[in-house]
């Protein structure tokens, strides 16, 4: 394979996809819109067909579920991307429902991993999923007015449908957004709204109702009751503003619900207003430890749509940046996990020491330590300076291998670490697949699924590396998978740094306004945290019609309750730490 930039029309012909239409003649029909692929399934046959897709065609991993609002056609569409954990391309299937009453059967009985994504589609688009166990808002709060991703829903600071806004370009007159809003702020109330007479249900109530309560009567007739504990959103161990409501029996977790949205920054809505190029810096701010890999997933999707190749040198630079990002992310992971276990800050200091050296390279190449904004459609924005490349060589060949050994010497055999991690937070391989776990979490449950191998993108098929995988499914396995991955990343980096050719870093002329043909594309990469996917729909205009992020931090939390049940509350902190979430990506 030379390039990931294949035309989107190539996909439906591959894999078992063709069987599907043959199996259900007259029911399942290929999506024939130009630039689109996959199959359309009528809403009433969805569960039946999806069961076949999972059980007989073998697409066991439901990667992405998202809704699209087709306002002009007065339709809502739900798009599913399913993959095989043995590798290969996606099976894309879609359901269209009328826009005024969008009701779709929930996929949760077939793939539990759909749970949060369906809640998100309900929250942001107002699509109802029948049979969903707990259909509440997930990113916004209960009681919020409207479904913001609907195309006719306008935010309070709305100016125009698409950037660049005419008020600022070309002649630059600008009115403060506050001055245009009737409430002089980022507020949007229904007309005639009276806050004093407002009656609204307590937004928390639905949450507490969804928890499984616990009461118990012992032999003497003494009633034992449950305790509700709220962790977060301000809590030192939640890695940001994540929150969990937990029901405890003594110290043991009985039931748990993650609560998110405290950092919901509306990436999707802002993305739909932005031009394709303007989105790249926003992707930086998703998983803010890994801006390079975030860029990569997005440019892959758009390159697929545009059907362009990537410059050879740029491919190498991308791989190098992705892998060094992975090392940096995993180092921080070790530090933060140890923080969560109570080894406050010392391991993290070791991690930050290496991270600073890596950030220096990012700064030299991209101009910024964290928000790199480095990848472009067709390449990378500029070449890596020679000195930075030399620093990188020193780091990869001389320094990092020793540092990993040092860290392992301090941690891997450490009694406290082993006893806190071994056998805790178990997740079986079946459950991991069914809950759409990806990345190190899935591999720690014994499923060797790594997109770099399973569905190679960029030039990963040229490198010799092993997919890190551990069968135990506990916290220790999750820790070890990351250790192995750092070593494998170093291997890839050493090969890439030896092979990197000279040449241009862009295959096309850089443009501010790229022309993206109409169609859909799903670009996904193996980010340090799991599968990071971007689902982009273009209608030929300068802005995407739909821009959706499939975030692994978000979906990997589906199994949180499963893993925590029966464990101690202190272990909850470690289990959460081992998922490796980043709030920017979780809440988007």
């Amino acid at each position, binding site marked *: 394979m030379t390039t990931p930039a294949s035309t989107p029309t190539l996909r439906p012909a591959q894999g078992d996809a063709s069987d599907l239409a043959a199996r259900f003649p007259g029911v399942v029909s290929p999506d024939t819109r130009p630039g689109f692929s996959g199959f359309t399934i009528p809403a009433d046959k969805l569960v039946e067909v999806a069961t076949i897709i999972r059980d007989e065609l073998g697409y066991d991993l439901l990667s992405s579920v998202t809704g699209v609002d087709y306002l002009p056609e007065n339709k809502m569409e739900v798009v599913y991307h399913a993959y095989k954990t043995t590798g290969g391309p996606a099976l894309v299937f879609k359901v269209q429902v009328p826009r005024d009453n969008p009701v779709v059967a929930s996929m949760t009985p077939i793939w539990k991993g759909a749970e949060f994504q369906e809640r998100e589609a309900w929250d942001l688009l107002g699509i109802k999923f029948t049979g969903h166990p707990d259909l509440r808002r997930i990113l*916004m*709060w209960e*009681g*919020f*007015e409207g479904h*913001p991703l*609907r195309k*006719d*829903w*306008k935010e*309070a*600071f709305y*100016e125009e449908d698409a950037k660049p806004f005419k008020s600022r370009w070309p002649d630059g007159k600008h009115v403060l*957004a*506050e001055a245009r*809003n*009737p*409430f002089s*702020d*980022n*507020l*949007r*109330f*229904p*007309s*005639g*709204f*009276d*806050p*004093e007479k*407002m009656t609204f249900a307590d*937004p928390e109530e639905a949450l507490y109702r969804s928890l499984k309560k616990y009461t118990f009567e012992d032999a003497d007739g003494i009633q034992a009751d449950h305790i509700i504990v709220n962790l977060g*959103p*301000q809590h*030192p161990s939640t890695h*940001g*503003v994540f929150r969990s409501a937990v029901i405890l029996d003594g110290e043991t977790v009985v039931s748990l619900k993650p609560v998110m*949205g*405290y*950092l919901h*920054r*509306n990436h999707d809505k*802002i993305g739909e*207003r932005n031009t394709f190029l303007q989105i790249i*810096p*926003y992707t930086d*701010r998703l998983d*803010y*430890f890994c801006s390079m890999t975030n860029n990569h997933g997005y440019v892959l999707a758009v390159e697929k749509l545009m059907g362009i190749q990537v410059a050879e040198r740029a491919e190498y630079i991308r791989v190098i940046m992705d892998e060094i990002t992975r090392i940096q992310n995993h180092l921080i992971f070790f530090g933060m996990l140890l923080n969560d276990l109570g080894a406050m800050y010392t391991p*993290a*200091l070791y991690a*930050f*020491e290496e*991270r*600073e050296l890596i950030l220096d390279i990012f700064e030299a190449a991209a101009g910024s*330590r*964290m*928000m790199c904004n480095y990848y472009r459609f067709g390449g990378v924005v500029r070449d890596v300076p020679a000195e930075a490349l030399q620093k990188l060589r020193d780091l990869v060949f001389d320094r990092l291998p020793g540092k990993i050994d040092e860290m392992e010497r301090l941690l891997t055999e450490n009694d406290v670490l082993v006893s806190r991690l071994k056998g805790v937070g178990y997740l079986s391989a079946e459950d991991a697949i069914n809950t759409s776990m990806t990345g190190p979490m899935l591999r720690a449950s014994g499923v060797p699924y790594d997109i770099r191998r399973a569905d190679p993108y960029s030039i990963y098929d040229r490198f010799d590396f092993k997919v890190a995988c551990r069968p135990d499914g506990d916290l220790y396995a999750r820790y070890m998978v990351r250790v192995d991955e750092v070593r494998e990343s170093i291997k890839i980096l050493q090969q890439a740094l030896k092979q990197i050719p000279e040449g241009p870093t862009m295959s096309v002329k850089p443009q501010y306004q790229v022309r993206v043909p109409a169609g859909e594309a799903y670009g996904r990469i193996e980010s340090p945290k799991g599968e990071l996917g971007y689902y982009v729909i273009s209608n030929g205009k300068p802005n995407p019609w739909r821009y959706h992020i499939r975030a692994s931090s978000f979906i990997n939390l589906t199994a949180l309750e499963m893993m925590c049940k029966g464990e101690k509350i202190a272990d909850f902190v470690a289990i959460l730490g081992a998922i490796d979430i980043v*709030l*920017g990506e979780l809440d988007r």
Partner: protein
Amino acid sequence: MENKESLNLPGYEIPDELKNVVSVTALDRLYNWGRRSSVWPLMFGLACCAIEMIAAQASRYDLARFGMEVMRPTPRQADLMIVAGTVTKKMLPAIVRLWNQMPEPKYVLAMGACASSGGPFKEGYNVVAGIDKFLPVDIYVPGCPPTPQALLNGLILLQKKIDQESIRKVRWYRKGPDSVEIPVPILGPDLIDPRRIPDIKAKAAELASTPAPATQS
């Protein structure tokens, strides 16, 4: 440190036999010196900027040089709230509560574009366009994210601000309620600032009488 020397210069003559034996200083100087050298920030990160805040605390930039490395997870022990990241409407009630729980003297530092003004996410429907709409910000640090050096600069500015204060004038020793408590915002159809209820009511009534397309769905 420059300030340590000036601490012993009260501005009047010290008898020779007492030099280097006792310390004579102005009360304000001693008071401010003590406080500026032990500003404990709240361990509180909202988004990307928080990572740079942690980097500032780690070995390369080493906040400990300023006596500020003791990040406190509880607001009860914190003197400084570094608002490091995007303030969302959903999070705001929690932030205001945290602020209300911090004892005086307390300061707010808005770190980054988001905390100062909404930054790149200003147009977002869940984003508060700047924490200064609710909390009294002392220092703004620009950047997206500000580098650790920029944050350090902001903290030095805060120290300078503390140096200007006088024990006779500071608000926490005046009579009256102990702190500047801020009413906790309510999450309704949108974020409701309790201080603005009459205003919101009037504006919404106005909207009802005139068809306004911009805020209708």
